[in-house]
């Protein structure tokens, strides 16, 4: 959509558009900058008016959280990692073959199964919260890491199945067929040919599975009453209500640790993520 009546040289146009785009991004991503800056400020500086754009004295004290009431920021980080990585592994182990099966073979009830995955993607997490709580309580998995992991997988699996299926569909059938002729069976052909060829899809699904679990609040909050086992999202909540008045710099330090893996994932996978998001949500 280009139209300007005023003619600009190509180079000036480049400068202008990139400049505007950077300005939009800067304003838009400002809250994340504010999160980081606040985490480095002292208690006194936080309430200074007008607020300081750069911390006058950078301090990392907020990152060293004295564990009041058996609660440690680093233990929480570890808990988050454990829950998210396990969710990712289980979700990928179950959804990759399922996506492949539904992309490659005709089977009865295929439409119904696809529909099931699509519908579950739209469900509110609150829907299964109470029944799973009762089921987990009876099965004695409440207050174990398994409880939030299972619950998080119910979000990650349908997303991964749908994203990966679209990827597998885009890969020519001949690839595994030739492997089959060379004597591989269905499963070997799938493992050796399909997974390596469709790695962008596999990586994106794995990253999103991780992120779903990493960001989830409601499941660990409900299923882990033991403070020491809570991941960052539930831990930080706990930390706000426990303190008398919110000490924002400490909360923000907590927030930075929570956002850190998100930014690492974004930087390393940027080119795959946008495509993954569109295939996973719009194309179903």
């Amino acid at each position, binding site marked *: *959509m*280009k139209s300007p009546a005023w003619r600009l040289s190509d180079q000036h146009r480049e400068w202008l558009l*990139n400049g505007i*785009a950077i300005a939009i991004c800067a304003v838009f991503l400002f809250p994340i900058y504010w999160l980081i800056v606040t985490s480095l400020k002292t208690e006194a500086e*936080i309430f200074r008016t007008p607020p300081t754009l750069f911390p006058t004295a950078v301090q990392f004290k907020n990152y060293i959280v004295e564990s009041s009431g058996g609660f440690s920021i680093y233990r929480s980080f570890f808990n988050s990692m454990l829950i998210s990585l396990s969710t990712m592994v289980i979700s990928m182990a179950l959804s990759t073959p399922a996506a492949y099966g539904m992309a490659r073979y005709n089977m009865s009830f295929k439409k119904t199964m696809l529909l099931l995955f699509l519908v579950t993607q739209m469900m509110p*997490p609150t829907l299964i*919260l*109470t029944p*799973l709580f009762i089921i987990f309580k009876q099965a004695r998995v409440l207050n174990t890491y398994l409880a939030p992991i299972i619950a998080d997988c119910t979000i990650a699996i349908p997303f991964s199945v749908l994203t990966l299926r679209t990827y597998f569909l885009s890969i020519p059938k001949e690839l595994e067929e030739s492997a089959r002729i060379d004597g591989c069976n269905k499963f070997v052909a799938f493992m050796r040919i399909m997974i390596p060829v469709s790695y962008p899809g596999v990586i994106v699904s794995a990253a999103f599975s991780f992120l779903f679990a990493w960001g989830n609040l*409601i499941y660990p909050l409900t299923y882990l009453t033991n403070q020491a086992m809570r991941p960052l999202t539930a831990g930080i909540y706990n930390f706000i209500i426990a303190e008398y008045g919110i000490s924002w710099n400490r909360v923000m330090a907590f927030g930075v640790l929570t956002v850190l893996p998100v930014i690492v994932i974004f930087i390393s996978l940027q080119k795959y993520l946008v495509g993954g998001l569109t295939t996973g949500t719009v194309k179903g």
Partner: protein
Amino acid sequence: MKKSRAEAGDWAKYLFVLPALLFMLAFIGYPIIYNIILSLRDVSVMTFQNAKELVGLRNYVQLFTESNGILNLSILNTFFYTAVCLIFQFSIGFAFAIFFALRFRYASFLRGLAMIAWMVPMTITGLMFKYMLSPSGGLINEILMALHLVKEPVEWLINGKTAMWGIIITNIWVGIPFNMILLATGITTIPESVYESANIDGANFLQKFFCITVPMIRPAIMSVLTLGFIYTFKVFDLVFIMTNGGPVNATEVLSTLAYRMSFVEFNFSKGATVSNVLFIILFFVGLFYLRLIRQNEEVM
């Protein structure tokens, strides 16, 4: 006795799908049915073990007909929140999508950068904005006061009249990149030649927008709106973190109400009833979405 390859292959293909399917049936299918049963009983922490008696639709009737009904209020709040968020995040997202569809060097990189906002866990987003909206030292009030738009700090999340708007502002920030990226993907698939021939015919910007861009990405627009509705309608984290439904139920939405019924008041049946109401509403929107994608692409 070896089975023939074709025969073995016939059931083997089901082995691919079976684990995922069983998992979903056990941890989603069964809980959904269980939830319906729960809502038809009277299960609380007291009657936890042996509440087998069915009370029929009593929970639903009670919640809907209560005087000053909290359920009705939550439904209204959820719809209000969703509608306002959708209008703003869609129009701002669309404007950004059009801008970033212009061809310049870092367009796709910078557009992608906005995705970070969408990827930040909602808990942290809620806290970031809670801090920025706070009456003492909150950046948003400082800016508004510096611009002389308000005389004294607005108690955004503490005042019943503004609390919902505080949460809405936050969610618009989250929703913009989602709308922008999906719409931009649609826009970039429109062939340049269509615009070129429109230019020859002397079409202006608005004509091109309403006669080419909008009709050609109609499927993407419909998807973004219905998916946006579904995601926004089931909001939990933002409300829970920022106001926890308060002040005095001003921001109570269906998800937080369901949570409160089950895990603060420990009335599991009431909680299940509320989440079923939420589910029924989303189910109909979901049906609409399924019809949409079935029309637009041959996914099924």
